[in-house]
């Protein structure tokens, strides 16, 4: 069964870079959102197994998105993918419910071990 992935980033280029970095031949269904508000709406509309979440976004940023998900009880594996590489940013998102943090630019070498860690990739 395909894994439902939601890629959340205000930059279409960043979303493209992330999707390109996903493992080849991985059985996934990909949906995209441009900010946290759109992500929450996508989440409410359907199933999400894995979310790739940027932090710096208009309308609703990554931190606010994690908070909204917690308040609404929306659960999935959240991997934050951000250019904000301050250790405090990483601590905050992990505390807010993210499963992992990946520094931009993302590539398969950074991604694969984390996907395996959460049983999303054999």
């Amino acid at each position, binding site marked *: 069964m395909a894994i439902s992935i939601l890629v959340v980033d*205000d*930059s*279409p*280029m*960043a979303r*493209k*870079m992330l999707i*390109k970095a996903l493992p080849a031949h991985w059985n996934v269904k990909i949906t995209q959102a441009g900010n946290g508000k759109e992500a929450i709406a996508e989440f409410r509309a359907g199933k999400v197994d894995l979310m790739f979440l940027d932090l*710096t*976004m*208009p309308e609703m940023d990554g931190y606010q998105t994690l908070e909204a998900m917690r308040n609404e009880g929306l659960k999935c594996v959240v991997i934050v993918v*951000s*250019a*904000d*590489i*301050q250790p*405090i*940013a990483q601590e905050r998102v992990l505390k807010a419910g993210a499963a992992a943090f990946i*520094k*931009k*630019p993302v590539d398969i070498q950074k991604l694969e071990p984390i996907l395996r860690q959460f049983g999303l990739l054999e």
Partner: protein
Amino acid sequence: MLTKDQRDALQEIANIGMGQAGEVIARVLNEFVTLSIPRVLILKPNLIAPALQRIVNSEAVSAVRQAFHGNLRGEALVLFGAQRCNDLAGLMGYEEKIDHATEMEILLDISNILVGACLGGIAKQVNADIGFSAPSLMADHVPVNEILKISDVSWECALLLEVNFKLEKLSFACHLIILMPENELKTFAGKIDRFMEAF
């Protein structure tokens, strides 16, 4: 001058460069840095001053300039609003109230770190080798619209790439502006295209 895709790619490239610069500043000051979404504008010279006014939101600014050269050429400006860096002095280890010369020294240090990390990050992603001149104080508490007269901008249009850094706990913010003349912008656009081809 830049297509929508090129602008989007540049915004993401700048975002990564800005993140690297933010991390260095956070480490130096031991404070969390709030980052903005980078903005990419192509402007005629007469529109740059109003754009800077909007960005800085302060009547008077201090500015540090630092030229970069190599595969890409242009000028980086770091603008500081009226608050400038009195609050930073303590974070940087100064125990007493600082004098004007020391304050200017801090502005130069902060600018040098920001420009090196941010532009270095951008250049690395587009596979460009660049070097930097020493930073110099360009303006000390002057009206924003005076800045470009001092910088002698003589090109037809320029890339204005704006990133903002704000300390979470202190009332300090600065703005990094990257200005590139039209011919350099064409070179940069070619490098952005090659960056995009990988995706």
